[in-house]
């Protein structure tokens, strides 16, 4: 009886704390929009963060994209050649990248590379009282620290996803045309005939924008909400990766089902 009661108490406790955190995260989003005006006045703060989140993620994005494209090319070829339609390899690679892998893999890598960096940085700023010090200097940390990082993430993600898709297609091309020997003309023309700008490329771009918002908010909130200790910050960093990855995959399903039905 007592253990059952304890179980319900724990369950209720975990639910209320989750709801409270969700509320706090929503409040943070609201505050970011309120203070965005202030931070747009000094655009160099956002530019600086685009450098740290976007430019610094470029290497991992380009290298991963190239390999993903090459693997898609190889796998696609071995399946398609059984049906005698190895020219369709370009379509397969391009559609897989533009619709799904581009936005999703970019977002997952972004969560691991830039998201954790944001969480650790903000958590550390909190632990060393930098955020408090800023408050005491009558400067809002939301305007000065949080909002520029948010907008930088939202700007960087679609750019990174576009680069990922393009480099991935090139990776597929390298495997298909010079190595396997698929006809170059067929590779590109089949691709162009079947990849629609509005339907495929734009929907991929919209996905990456949504992932950018989600990943950055999660990373910022986890940092802002982290207990101000070394252990708290390291846990928050782990939570950023886990929560972001789950959010990306769940959102991907929701967005895909909307895009296909609409």
């Amino acid at each position, binding site marked *: 009886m007592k253990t059952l009661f304890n179980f319900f108490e724990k369950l209720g406790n975990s639910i209320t704390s989750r709801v409270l955190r969700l509320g706090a995260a929503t409040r943070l989003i609201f505050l970011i929009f309120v203070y965005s005006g202030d931070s747009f006045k000094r655009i160099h703060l956002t530019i*600086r963060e685009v450098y740290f989140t976007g430019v610094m993620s470029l290497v991992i994005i380009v290298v991963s994209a190239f390999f993903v494209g090459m693997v898609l090319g190889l796998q696609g070829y071995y399946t398609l050649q059984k049906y005698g339609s190895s020219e369709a390899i370009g379509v397969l690679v391009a559609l897989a990248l*533009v619709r799904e892998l581009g936005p999703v893999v970019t977002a997952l890598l972004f969560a691991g590379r830039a998201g954790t960096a944001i969480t650790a940085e903000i958590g550390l700023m909190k632990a060393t009282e930098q955020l408090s010090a800023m408050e005491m200097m009558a400067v809002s940390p939301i305007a000065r620290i949080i909002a520029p990082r948010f907008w930088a993430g939202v700007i*960087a993600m679609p750019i990174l996803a576009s*680069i990922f898709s393009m480099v991935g*297609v090139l990776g597929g091309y390298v495997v298909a045309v010079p190595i396997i020997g698929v006809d170059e003309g067929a590779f590109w023309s089949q691709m162009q005939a079947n990849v629609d700008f509005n339907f495929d490329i734009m929907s991929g771009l919209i996905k990456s924008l949504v992932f950018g918002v989600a990943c950055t908010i999660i990373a910022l909130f986890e940092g802002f909400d982290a207990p101000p200790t070394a252990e708290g910050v390291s846990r928050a960093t782990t939570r950023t990766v886990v929560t972001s990855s789950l959010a990306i995959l769940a959102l991907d399903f929701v967005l895909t089902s909307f895009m296909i039905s609409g």
Partner: protein
Amino acid sequence: MDKIKFDAWVGIFVAVGIISLLGLATKVGNLTSNDIRETYMVTANFENIGGLKPRAPIKAAGVVVGRVNSIVFDTKAYHAVVSIDIDKRYVFPKDTFANIYTAGLLGEQYIGLEAGGDTKNLEQNDRITQTQDAVVLEKLISQFLYSKASEEDK
């Protein structure tokens, strides 16, 4: 000093992003090749559309000239009303014939247009009067079996 470095790198980053997007649009996608932007809409009634879907291609002599916009069921006349967008560059006579074809044996379905001899051309919101329904495989098979059976009766 630092500021200039950040600005330069972010500038390069954004430029590479835009180039990639343009590459996707033109090289991978179909933004330039058969881009259908300016269109006019006409409707066509079919007794049976088979597996035709919105966004299915409209072809004339094998060339894509437009896309299916929407398919609705007319509850008064009990037939399907298909609205199609045709590229403004292509004009068709008023008595154009619209067929629903299947690409390959089991492929996707599309509408094929065959030009008639009328001197007036189709315009926005016109209706294509001459249509031929989709071939439904079950109907074909049952017709075949029926004719076989009647042959044997003789």
